[in-house]
Structures are given as structure tokens and as C-alpha cells.
């Protein structure tokens, strides 16, 4: 099973490092990263494997959310199926 982590907000130093560290802490394996910076606006999307996570998915979500709050970013982790069902027939 995979989840999509989205990070949206103002660009700053070390965003990828901190989000990746959070993933590593929970043993969520990053399989793909896409990012774009438009002016100061930062959008990153990570695809992570969640099958071998050490913690509950909900605590992973909560800690990512808390990291987002500290950095002034919107960080979410959502099961990939919501995107698959919405955008693929």
C-alpha cells in the first residue's frame, strides 16, 4: 500500500530533509518525489510505501501535520486510492 504525502506552502531551507527524516523515523519508504517551486510557492509530492511502517498511519499523519505547523506548511498524508479513484477511470 502506498500513501501520497503532499507538502504545500512557502519555500524555505530544509523542507525535503525534514519531511524525509519524518518518513524514515516511521519506516515509510519513499519511492518517488516530485516537486516544483513557483515564485516562493513550494509544492512537493512524495509517494511512500506504508506496509512496513513501525507506527500507525494516523500517528504518521499527525506528526507530519505537526511538522507542517512548525514550518508554516500544509503537510498531509493520504492513501493513494483517493487520488486513483478520483482521477483514473
Amino acid at each position, binding site marked *: 500500500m502506498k500513501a501520497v504525502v503532499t507538502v504545500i506552502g512557502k519555500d524555505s531551507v530544509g523542507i525535503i530533509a525534514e519531511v524525509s527524516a519524518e518518513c524514515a523515523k516511521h519506516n515509510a519508504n519513499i519511492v518517488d518525489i516530485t516537486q*516544483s517551486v513557483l515564485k516562493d510557492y513550494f509544492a512537493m*509530492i512524495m509517494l511512500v510505501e506504508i506496509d512496513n511502517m513501525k507506527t500507525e498511519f494516523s500517528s504518521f499523519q499527525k506528526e507530519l501535520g505537526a511538522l507542517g505547523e512548525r514550518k508554516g506548511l500544509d503537510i498531509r498524508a493520504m492513501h493513494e486510492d483517493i487520488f486513483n479513484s*478520483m*482521477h483514473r477511470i
Partner: protein
Amino acid sequence: MLNINDILETVNMIKQENLDIRTITMGISLFDCISDDQKKLESKVYDKITKSAENLVKTAIDLENTYGIPIINKRVSVTPMALVGANCDKDGFVRLAQVMERAADTLGINFIGGFGALVQKGMTRGAQNLIESIPEALATTNKVCSSINVASTKAGINMDAVKKMGEIMKETAYLTRDRDSIGCAKLVVFSNIPEDNPFMAGAMHGMGEPETVINVGVSGPGVVASAIKREGECDFSHLADVIKKTAFKITRVGQLIAYEASKRLNTPYGIIDLSLAPTPAVGDSVAHILENMGLEKCGCHGTTAALAMLNDAVKKGGVMASSHVGGLSGAFIPVSEDAGMISAAECGALSIEKLEAMTAVCSVGLDMIAVPGDTSASTLSGIIADEIAIGVINNKTTAVRLIPVYGKGVGESVEFGGLLGHAPIMKLSDYSSDEFIARGGRIPAPIHSLRN
């Protein structure tokens, strides 16, 4: 990998445009609870509801976390109580409503529907007792919702029931007068009631339904309104396409949640209700969709046509996205629950007459409309009769949920709070329907050829 723009679109729909799942509603059959002993009946009803839905709230919260989409309400609908408690007297039905409330509290759900009766052709003694018990039942509970079906295209209109429901509305308003007559917000009168509707106050678990079932109601007026705004100037063919595509995406999320909920609760999946259900929150309004199409204010000339197109396009997009569609499926136009409707009613752009016309082309009917507290029962019945006739003749569901706010008149407003919102008191006709309503009897079922 998924396209970055698609992902951001979904996140934006949830974060900015209020996309949510309005409700997961579990339907529960109570036929096996029937008993001639009131106490036994009550304990069986309580046990059946609390056992069948014990994991409903937890599962909904888990789904909310996994998929990152808010699930606003968790609800239960049951077999129309007039059938389950056919032996009960008036007090017995009040107690049954209180049992439903207790079960709802135990489960932690938001609403429980099905305290109702089907009386389109006539009333059994049980149905009569249930209807008599409604004012007290709704005054002594908070989560119990009541729906009465007074007409159908096949049976015609039971005008005795229409007359009675005007009186019951009035009495319910009086008994909850200390809370701005909120009891009436939990009472709805239907024609052609759907048996699988997950939305309140009209949810019930129909007679052809399985033992238990999961029905899901989606929402998303904000998403449609934004999509139309983004599109800017374009003709109606293009606009209909934009709405269809958006409705498709919204419904796919509902389908995913319904499928997962059904799997996790080991309960069959019933239907997705494709309704665009607004809330009083800014950016979650059906009226604003119509205004984004180019109307200065919801209620001006052109509103009915705009709503007709919206309703049809939502269904076309939604049907493709879901394996089973049912319930009310269409755009809701509850006045107090929609920021745009409230503002249109306050400035006088939207009248009850225009709302009545709008209900001919969208789902539901005259919904959450506050009217003066001194409105007579026969005038309320007259409004019900008009709205129900639209449903019966056009072979569609219509419903009436009016709140005759005790002690208030035109120019004042009423605050219900939460999803129920607030509303200005709307002006009604000054002329009497007394003699018309007093006739009683039944309006015969309509003919279905020679259509004009």
C-alpha cells in the same frame, strides 16, 4: 506515478473548497424487533441498533484518517417506526423515539432517522398514533428525525394526512418554542419518499432493503462553484461538461468511501446519494453555484433554468462514477443551510414562490424555510399540498420542511446553529386555504398519458 496537478487538485478541493463526505448512514431493519410487549419492543430496538452499528463511528473516523477526507456525519436509519411499533399507543411511540435517542447517544452518531410512517393512501392505527406522538417525541429528543410520506404518484395525495401534518408542524413548533421551534427542523413531509436516502431528516430503511446496509451521501457545492468560476466565460454546453466532470470526481470519492466502509463493517453497500448538499459555511453553497453561472442573485429570473441544468449535469457525471445511485440524488436548496440562499432571502431576491418553482427541477423541496410563528395550520397544509402535488404529478420526490418559528414574524431571523444554520422569516400569502384543506379525502393519482 500520479500526476502532480491531479494530486494538488484533490488536496485543494478538500482544503479550500470544502469537499467532504456528508454522511455515512447505516440502514438497519427493525422488523425482527416487533413485539406486543412494549418493554420487550424497546429493549429489542435498542439492542438491534446499538449492536448493528457498534463500529460505525470508529470505522468512519478510520476512513477519514486513511483517505484524508472529512466525513461530517455518521447516521443510522431504521425501518419506519409506525410499522415496527404498530401496536403502540401515542405514549408508546414517544418512548420508542426516546429509545432511538438513547441508542444514538450510545453509538455517538449525529442523527437517527426513521421515526416515520407511510400514509400515502391511508393511516393504520399505528401510523395515526405515531403521527400524534411526533411533537412530543421531537421535543424530548435531539437526534431523532421524523419523516411522513403523504403521497405518491401511484396512490395520489392523502389530503387528510396533509391536513394533519400542518397541525403537527404547528404543535411541534410550539413544544420546542424555547429553542426557536427547532423540533420542526427534524420533521419532513414527503411525496414519493425514497427508501434508501442517507440524508436527514428524511432517512429511513425501506421495506425492500436488506438487514443492514451502508448508504453514503456526498457533498461538494464549493468544488462545483469553483470549477465554474475557473472556467470563466463559456457557453452552456461547455458549462454542463465542467459540472459533469466535477460531479464525477466528487462521486468517485463517495464510491471509494462507501466501498471501504461496506468492507470494513461487513455490511452490504447500498447506494451513493449524488446530492450536492450545502452547509452554511462560506464556499459551500448551491446558491453560489447558480450565481457563478451569471445570475446576480439566486432567485432572480433564470434561477430555475440554472438549477435544472446543474441538477441534470450532477446526475450525469455522478451516475458514471458509481455502481449504484439512489436516495435523493440532486441539488439541495435548504434555505437556512446555505450561505447564498440566506443572503438571497435576506435581500428579498428569493421568495417562497420562487423556491417552489425551483423544487420542480431539483431534488427534495421546500427545505429549512422559516415562516412566521402565527401561520395557521391550514396555511402550512396548503404549502405542503402545493409542494407534494409537484412531486406527484412530475413523478419525483418532493418534501416540505418548514419551521413556523413560535413568537417570530417577517423581518426577524432565527439561528439554529451548526449544519442547520440561520434564516430570515419568509413572507407567506395573506389569504386563507382553510376551506380547501378542510375538505379532506384523497386527491386521485394522476394520469400518465396525455402529458402536458
